[in-house]
């Protein structure tokens, strides 16, 4: 089984990196190759890194509330770059205002994300999901 590469990073102008750093540690420990882009990552940087490394997934983190603006169009840009089927996951605090988690989840699914995670989700959850989604198991 070849090693799957995932791209991690915090989108937009957001610099909260604790979550994405721990994701990187956990995914590496679980046997993935991780391209950790760190803080303040543009959509283009995510896509370029995914194209260059033939990544299986992009794991977008966001804490500061601007995720709906920052994530808009990412799926379309992936398609334009030939990454039509790449898995897109997003997690964190994904809205500036209080809303039902189901609404947040639907909003991001409509933007083309395959999985949407609330704050405090352990890396193990995303690791199990990605194995399923990539049919690695």
């Amino acid at each position, binding site marked *: 089984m070849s090693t799957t590469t995932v791209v991690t990073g*915090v989108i937009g*102008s957001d610099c909260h990196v*604790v979550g994405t750093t721990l994701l990187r540690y956990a995914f590496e420990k679980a046997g993935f190759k991780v391209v950790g882009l760190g803080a303040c990552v543009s959509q283009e940087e995510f896509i370029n890194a995914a194209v260059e490394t033939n990544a299986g997934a992009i794991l977008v983190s966001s804490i500061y509330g601007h995720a709906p603006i920052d994530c808009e169009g990412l799926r379309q840009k992936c398609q334009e770059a030939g990454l039509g089927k790449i898995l897109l996951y997003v997690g964190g*605090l994904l809205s*500036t*205002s209080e809303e039902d988690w189901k609404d947040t989840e639907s909003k991001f699914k409509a933007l083309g994300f395959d999985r949407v995670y609330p*704050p*405090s989700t*352990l890396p193990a959850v995303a690791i199990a999901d990605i194995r399923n989604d990539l049919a690695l198991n």
Partner: protein
Amino acid sequence: MQLSNKRWSDEEFFDMRKEVLSWWPTGKEIDLDEAVEYRKKLPKHKVWADKLEQAKKDEKCLLYVMLGHATVEQTLEHMKFLEQAGADLLMIMPDAYTRKRKYEEAERGVTESIRQGKSLLNGYPMVNHGVKRNRVLTDSVNVPIQLLSCCDEDPRLNHEVTLASGFNGQTMDLHDLIQHCKDYPLDKRIRNTQYANRLTSYYEERGVPVNLNIPANLCGWDPLGMKIVMAILACLLAAEQGARHLDIGVTPTCHLVHDVAGLKQVRALTNEYLHRFGYNDVTVSVACSSWQGDWPRDLYRAASLLSICASISVLGGVDYHMLRSVQEARAIPNKESNLAALRIGQQVIATLGKQRLSESDELKLEQEMIAKEVRAIVDRVIELGQGDIIAGELKAVQTGELDAAFPCWIHVKGKVLPVRDATGAIRYLDHGNLPLPKDVIEYHRQKIAEREKAEKRKADLEMVIEDVVCISR
């Protein structure tokens, strides 16, 4: 210009100022002498330095609440609501675009927020609104206002607008690169901070006290000593340019004895270093904020965490407590969630009153260890710079003798790994290249070993990850 911790001449400052004010149309509206006169006319109850001085005499812990929305009207409504509820100080958070000097994007955020009738920005874009409109807040609210004006890479125009609007500000350099920036050079960031500090002194020297908030947060999980080091370095930079009212805000680790030890030491050690460099007329105040790590989404649990943090503040004898909101893990706080936080803080203060944590062997030992840790790092920075804090800071970052856990800034080593000990105090699992004394390293190692023994497993990355979410899950 050679970068060193030396006060800037008027010429240096005003030369740079021309460019800074040209970054956005509202910059040109700023008239420093008019702003000094405006601030001089503010009534005493709107002057944070005066209110804080009185509270210290009364041994009363004050409460500040944070907020910030896209428009003046949304922000003012929230502020009036909290003023009526008894907040002592209102802290305005700028939005992320303003913090990154992306004023065009902030403008789009304001326009879209007006169109949709709700704030789409995560804070208040003070540069876009400009001094005249910001002063509507100062004029309409009867409590002092502080604005986090010195965040991220280049806060020079943000700080200009903040002070001219009648608000108090903020200062930091390396700390905020580590916390909020990715790839900005430290020397440029220090110059930007020197500018903000030098601007502050323009007001101070004309009889206008301006309090600057100095964060001692880092990512929230760093050991306390490192946070205190960052605050002391920022204070020495600010004092050299002429800032005179410095408020250090420490984030707690949520371990009562360890936090109280840190709160006592941050005041003592900062004054010690200020005096050592001859800055004898600086007023240092100490605040403690609410937990800065991962928050529980459940509102009752968040309320309990707020209460614990406020209790640490009171028992630690701080001058004021910085609240977060019950919505911390859910959204940018609305006025109802800030009111809930304020009521929690008020109840803690009313209940605990003048109780302070008593001296004990444990408290004494923690204070001793923190003092050794801090002095070792700060003294090494001074040594590396041959007496110049800035030269030392630049070198120490390169050698890893100044470092942090989970930094977002790529130019710091990021070798530090924190882990909680058997009773929950944050210790160094890995201290990287920090110049810690042997007995401090041994003390942290022993404390971690106690947990390893109790839990029958080795402290490792898995444990670090568990610790990061242990309060929120």
